[in-house]
């Protein structure tokens, strides 16, 4: 007891820091995920699901359409909701996203929107979020560069 009395200010200080850490951690609006995990998932392409993979899933899923256009015909309509991208994190929509059982499948015809939404949701801790890959590899180069062997830069410009 005597010993404890001597270090009571120390214990108080540690306690204050602990409280501050807990308060900081309970802030809903902060990101708390490591960026590295998102980068790795993107590199492995493990954040993408094709419609075929989707229909083979054992667990439940829900397609969230964040684009302007409607879903392609290959997706069952009863499993989808539509939320505009800019309202994705509104209080009510956030409740809906948190309430999704199983996988949360993001879809937009414009792949950029789904990609941005995926990064945001992933970093908010939605580990069940995936992107629906509706057609082919969007990151493939469609054109082949044809070198012009007659063209030469002047040496001194290098």
């Amino acid at each position, binding site marked *: 007891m005597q010993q404890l009395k001597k270090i009571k200010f120390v*214990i108080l200080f*540690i306690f204050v820091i602990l409280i501050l850490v807990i308060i900081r951690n309970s802030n809903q609006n*902060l*990101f708390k995920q490591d960026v590295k995990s998102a980068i790795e998932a993107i590199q492995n392409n493990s954040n993408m699901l094709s419609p075929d993979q989707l229909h083979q899933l054992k667990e439940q899923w829900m397609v969230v359409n964040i684009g302007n256009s409607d879903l392609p015909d290959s997706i069952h309509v009863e499993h989808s909701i539509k939320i505009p991208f800019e309202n994705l994190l509104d209080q009510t929509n956030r409740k809906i996203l948190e309430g999704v059982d199983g996988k949360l499948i993001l879809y937009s015809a414009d792949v950029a929107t789904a990609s941005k*939404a995926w*990064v945001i949701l992933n*970093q908010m801790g939605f580990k069940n979020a995936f992107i629906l890959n509706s057609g082919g590899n969007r990151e493939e180069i469609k*054109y082949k*560069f044809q070198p012009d062997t007659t*063209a030469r830069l002047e040496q001194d410009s290098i």
Partner: protein
Amino acid sequence: MDARIRYSVLLVGVGIILAFLPFDAAQTFQLKSNELLTRSASEVMYFSVDQVARAVNSEDSTVQIIDVRSAAQFKECNIPGSINIPFGDLQNPLWEATLNQKKVKNILYGNGDQTASYTWTILTGLGYPNNYMMKGGLNEWFRTVMLSQYSGEKITPAENARFENRLNACKAFTQINSLPDSLKTKFFNAKRLNQSKLDGGCN
């Protein structure tokens, strides 16, 4: 002896809190989530292919074009004046000074929109300013700039300017990328060296 015990308890106590911190703030997004969403939903981050072509032609020093594809793809062809920061290498501290800066506009591009969108969201989320992306990526660049053709009888001055801009960018692109491999490597190494000189630090 008291002071020693006090400081030891203090340091070990704070150390234990640190060891159990729920997240590593240096590796997480700095922006608030709704703020990041608002920025992602706006169109401000886009540069059109024509704007990038104009920057290439005028050797605009207020923009830095960044290729986020793999090194092999970059070597095959890239937009003149661009530097290569492969997506997987994003967290390399070497690029910190290039990506997190206030001087120039960084324009990201990949083959399509996807990788550049990921990169843009990650960089902006981390709180880095001045990041933009080229809408449509290199596919759009090829479609508009490289295969640019004009057919028709009359040409308005605006159309003429746009066409000339594309044609010049196409020429520069072809010239740079037609260099033999050895010269290309030399060229990139020289560029990389210049870049690393900008890195600074207190060496």
